[in-house]
């Protein structure tokens, strides 16, 4: 028993790593494969979390809900609605270059946050939505956590295999062609805006899935949980640091960044009260700096995307330096 109890914290961290992996893989589909800068990951995460919460939570007077649907229906609904929200955004923005998408997705995330905070009858405003069902929630704490970890990890494995399969398929090659040379891809007869829209919507659905799993983990969702600092910007660092375009790299990125992030919280909690608060804001500096450093020194990430021709094109560079 004591041994299992000691595992409490690692299990907790591992569940979070799995949940954020969905966001990171979703972002990798958008950024790594299609080159789309979605700066509002938190928005799609929130849509997923709230949708699943509304579909599965028990009835509360004055708030939409009480459907009491099973977990699986909530998750499916979350993915569907996130995709539906992404659809019009993508339609409007993907005709232009990436910067417009960045600005608009920041706006979407903000708008969704304001909506979550003010629409009492749908989202329960600041109190949020409570008492969500949780798979294996009836077991004792440690076993319940372990079972949830196994469930989330299993879903993650399925998603990972599917995305890998898709990436190796002609669709994946086409997306990378569009990302690397839009004009050439267009000349080959590819419908660039439509394909980008596909990638954007698909990525958003995965983010919604992550949101739903997050909500069921804590059995509740509140507006504080959809903080863009973590759910958007930290996810970005995970993806770029790990290696955009490479799902295994992205998963490694999630693990590394989340462990650094929780460890830094552990450190700041040890500080005396008056410094602890400032150190908390200092961690945001760390996010920004990490983003800059990765862009500067490791733009392809720790595990760069595998490209068959890369070896040949690298050789002249090395001889140049020498």
């Amino acid at each position, binding site marked *: 028993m004591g041994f299992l109890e000691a595992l409490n914290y690692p299990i907790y961290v591992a569940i979070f790593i799995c949940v954020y992996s969905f966001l990171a893989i979703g972002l990798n589909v958008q950024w790594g494969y299609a*080159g789309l*800068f979605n*700066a509002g990951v938190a928005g799609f995460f929130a849509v997923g979390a709230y949708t699943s919460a509304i579909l599965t939570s028990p009835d509360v007077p004055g708030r939409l809900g009480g459907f009491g649907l099973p977990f699986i229906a909530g998750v499916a609904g979350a993915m569907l609605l996130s995709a539906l929200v992404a659809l019009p955004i993508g339609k*409007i*923005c993907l*005709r*232009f*270059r*990436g*910067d*417009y998408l*960045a*600005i*608009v997705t*920041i*706006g*979407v995330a*903000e*708008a969704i946050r*304001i909506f979550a*905070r*003010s629409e009492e009858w749908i989202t329960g405003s600041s109190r949020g939505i409570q008492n969500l069902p949780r798979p294996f929630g009836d077991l004792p704490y440690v076993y319940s956590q372990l079972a949830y970890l196994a469930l989330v990890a299993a879903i993650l494995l399925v998603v990972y295999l599917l995305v890998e399969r898709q990436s190796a398929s002609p669709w994946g090659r086409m997306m990378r062609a569009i990302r690397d040379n839009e004009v050439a891809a267009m000349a080959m007869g590819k419908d660039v805006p439509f394909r980008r829209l596909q990638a954007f919507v698909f990525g958003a659905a995965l983010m919604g899935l992550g949101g739903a799993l997050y909500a069921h983990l804590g059995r509740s969702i509140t507006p504080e949980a959809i903080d863009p*600092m973590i759910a958007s*910007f930290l996810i*970005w660092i995970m993806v*770029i640091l790990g290696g955009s375009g490479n799902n295994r790299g992205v998963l490694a990125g999630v693990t590394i960044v989340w462990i650094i992030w929780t460890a830094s919280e552990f450190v700041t909690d040890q500080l005396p009260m008056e410094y602890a608060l*400032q150190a908390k*804001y*200092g*961690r*945001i*500096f760390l*996010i*920004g*700096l*990490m*983003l*800059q450093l990765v*862009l*500067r020194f490791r*733009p392809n990430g720790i595990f760069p995307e595998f490209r068959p021709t890369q070896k040949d094109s690298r050789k002249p560079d090395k001889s140049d330096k020498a």
Partner: protein
Amino acid sequence: MLDFINFYVVPGIVTGSIYAFAAIGITLVFSIMRHAHLAHGDMATMGAYIALAASTMLGLPVYFALLLAIPLTAALAVGTDKLFYEHLRKKPKILTTMSTLGTALMLRSIVQVVWGVGTTSYAKGITRPNDWFGLKIKTNELITLLALAVVVLGLAAFLNRTRWGKAMRAMSDNRDLALLCGIDNARVITLTWLIVGGLCAISGFFLGINTEIKSMMGWNIILPAFAGAILGGIGRIEGALVGGLMIGLVEELSVLFIPTEYKAVSAFAILLLVLLVRPRGLFNGKII
């Protein structure tokens, strides 16, 4: 009628001029450097806090503190460019946009660590508005409008009459052609960052003096400022002016029709509408 003007139109124009200051900077970065400057809001916050520090620590009157904050923020803008953006010039521009997001987080964090997350203001107490035949306008609001006129006219004269201004416009039209004509791209970029940094300080300062100073103030105006720049047409100073003013007015007037919480969303709605219907904006700007 007079109440309508005093309670909605005047605040709308004042808010709009703050957005216009920010939108002009955004439109300059967007058209000359060709990336979105997501750190614009947080750089404005930084400018506002530098002015606050100058006025409290050195005991300067607030408007003199602004004159000190402008060059300091301009230097900060050039510094971030040299540190973080210069090495990304030859790469896809979207990476620079991403890097500006990193800068935004770093600047905000510095403000929060040094000055905390509370709200403060340049002057204690409530200033009473002056009464101009029923029109109630505060002195600070008048100065804001006056400063906007000076900045816009000055910038227009600079861009249209001087050598360096013309170089900036040439680079915004066609970077390679400008380079072929002997325009030093690197120096034009530094000059642009100087101007943009100064504009950040001005917009942050006037936002602070007309509302309150807090660490999220700049990030909160980034969407309306971008909406203003795109509504006016990217690369158009006069467009950013008109666009910013219109966004400010719409935001203030929107509370007549939609709940107050959604005031911030109305700018975003206009942004989407412009991108959908007329992405070149009112003054036929560029699509980057």
